[in-house]
């Protein structure tokens, strides 16, 4: 009896794959990308953020980022600003959640004040850059619904092209088109469409390196705003994984002494 069932399952298996609709396939790709990145525990990195206006003038921000993986929920992150000098010592603590809005606290060193901020402003520009808070916060599967569109070659790599729709009503986007490479499930490109469904920004990532033999992180990210002509480049350096960070390193107390 068991053998018949197994046989039946094996026969029907390809059918079920064929029957998979674009929504299921899109979700499956997102789940697989998430699964491949799970288990990193924590990492720290240095980030240089270079803002460029439409005249080509550049200004830079330097920050240090620490990320803690949280089982069953979104990641925790702590970002410390080193430059420009007037925001030196300012720090941002974020608890992202799979559902609902994230929790965020900002530390203002001049006042020694920790301020809980409304993270419903997720569509707001992060540090005056072309990245919105929601673009840089932890990308949880549950934050979107998905649809697989097609296979396509991007930058010489075979990719899935999926479309995803933000669940949160506070998101600044109607939809996003994402290019994910088939070999390693890394995001290579994202097109962001605003609430009016016009193309707003394009994100591209390159210089991917593998850490701990498993976790891919980009060395450079670029966000181009098509509507304003401005762009922001992120340069990532000094990635260190599994540094032994704990929950206690992501509290309002640690925020006050982070610098």
């Amino acid at each position, binding site marked *: 009896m068991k053998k018949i069932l197994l046989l039946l399952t094996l026969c029907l298996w390809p059918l079920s794959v064929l029957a998979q609709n674009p929504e299921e396939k899109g979700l499956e790709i997102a789940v697989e990308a998430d699964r491949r990145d799970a288990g990193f525990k924590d990492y720290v990195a240095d980030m240089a953020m270079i*803002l460029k*206006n439409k005249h080509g003038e550049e*200004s*830079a921000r330097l920050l240090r980022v620490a990320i803690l993986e949280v089982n069953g929920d979104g990641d925790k992150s702590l970002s410390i600003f080193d*430059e*420009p*000098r*007037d*925001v*030196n*010592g300012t720090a941002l603590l974020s608890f992202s959640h799979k559902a609902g*809005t994230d*929790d965020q606290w900002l530390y203002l060193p001049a*006042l*020694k*004040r*920790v*301020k*809980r*901020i*409304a*993270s*419903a*402003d997720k*569509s*707001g*520009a992060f*540090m*005056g850059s072309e990245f919105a808070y929601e673009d840089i916060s932890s990308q949880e599967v549950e934050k979107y619904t998905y649809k697989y569109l097609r296979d396509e070659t991007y930058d010489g790599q075979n990719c899935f092209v999926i479309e995803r729709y933000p669940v949160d009503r*506070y998101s*600044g986007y109607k939809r996003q088109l994402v290019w994910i490479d088939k070999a390693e499930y890394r995001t290579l490109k994202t097109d962001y469409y605003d609430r009016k469904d016009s193309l707003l920004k394009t994100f591209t990532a390159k210089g991917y390196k593998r850490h701990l033999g498993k976790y891919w992180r980009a060395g450079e990210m670029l966000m181009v705003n098509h509507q304003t002509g401005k762009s922001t480049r992120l340069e990532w350096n000094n990635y260190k994984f599994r540094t032994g960070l704990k929950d*206690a390193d992501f*509290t*309002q*107390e640690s925020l006050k*002494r982070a*610098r």
Partner: protein
Amino acid sequence: MKETQEESGTRGKERNIRKRDRYDDVESSACSVLFRVFRFLLRSWIASLVLACATAARAQGELSGQAAIEWRIFPQQAISSEQQRSYLSVAVQPEYHYKWDNDKQSFTFAPFARLDHHDKERTHFDIRELTWLKAGDGWELRLGIRKVFWGVTESQHLVDIINQTDLVENLDGEDKLGQPMVNLALIRNWGTLDLFVLPGFRERKFPGGKGRLRTTLPVDSDRAVYESKRGRGRIDWAARWARTFGDWDVGLSHFHGTSREPRLLPGADSGGKPVLIPRYDIIHQTGLDLQWTKGQWLWKLEAIRRTGQGGQARKGGRYTALTGGFEYTFSHFAGSRVDLGLISEYLYDERGEKAATPFQDDIMVGARLALNDAQSSEALFGVIVDRHTGASFLNLEASRRLGNRWKFSLESRGFAGVRRADPLFGLRRDSYLQLELALYF
């Protein structure tokens, strides 16, 4: 009028104070134990500093800070002829930060100095921070001089009581003098409990005779009177518990010690000229701060219950005050990348017209604008209106970064319709515009 009543009541109060001195003796023996503990901790701190220097080669040090030039312009003629219409001043605040032991220990030194063109009281020096920090598993110990902020509201900071206000720096009460302390924080799953022992009282700084933004009669801080017979040597204590419950951030605090807010009593200086003399009472203050963060809304409440202000025997020495309101943010205002926040708060003080604060039954409305540009241009405007007299206190603060190291700020405060009985009466002609250029390094 109010000042004269204060004077006639003074003699009776002095008797009460003498009675309380005996009760204070018990307190002072406890204080001397605390003092010895503090001395011990201070010694261990110095020892650890020496150790820190010895391990300097392996640790990281960082020098940062700012220097600024400031110009204040007062369009109206002052009340007193010695006051000016234009004040130039320069300020510098370097900061040395040094960490070791895998960032579990750090040392910070931040002196501050200002040089003012006319006001010799505003020309001042202060150690804003001189702290050694040790972070353990679930606890943090801080020893030395520093600044602590408590609270959530924008229009005033009732709950915030650890540090003395540096009133010569700014009227907004956000500049503070460094407070010597031993601070132990216990960080547990039931919240964070901060315990403070505060030796060494800091007197409030007031503008001098040639300075603007002062009381009609200048304050003579050299003649300050204390309820505690130990004067500035009294050791105060405080505790605060804080915890986050989902969308709610809650803080409960208590302070016992010399009030940071003096009463100003009429008197004479050494030359016999009439002045105001600060009198510092011993108070208890229990505080609550609460914030609910939901969607685009921030709902805020600060409340205090204070006893002892104005002398413990006096009926007026026991009162409740609160500030509560909201901030709502429109992000991408009108389709742009600009964020616009609307703020409104209600300010209440049970003492009503007898309150030393001008904000006893007032409404604040304001707006915060962030352009989200590369220069972080932002502005905050607010007006606090007295519900009875209509007296208004207007505030504008705006700033913009220039290049990577400079910042230009504009600040303006104004007073309108201020009546004689209002504590702001002395400032009625002191509306001003301030321009500041700061270099950050």
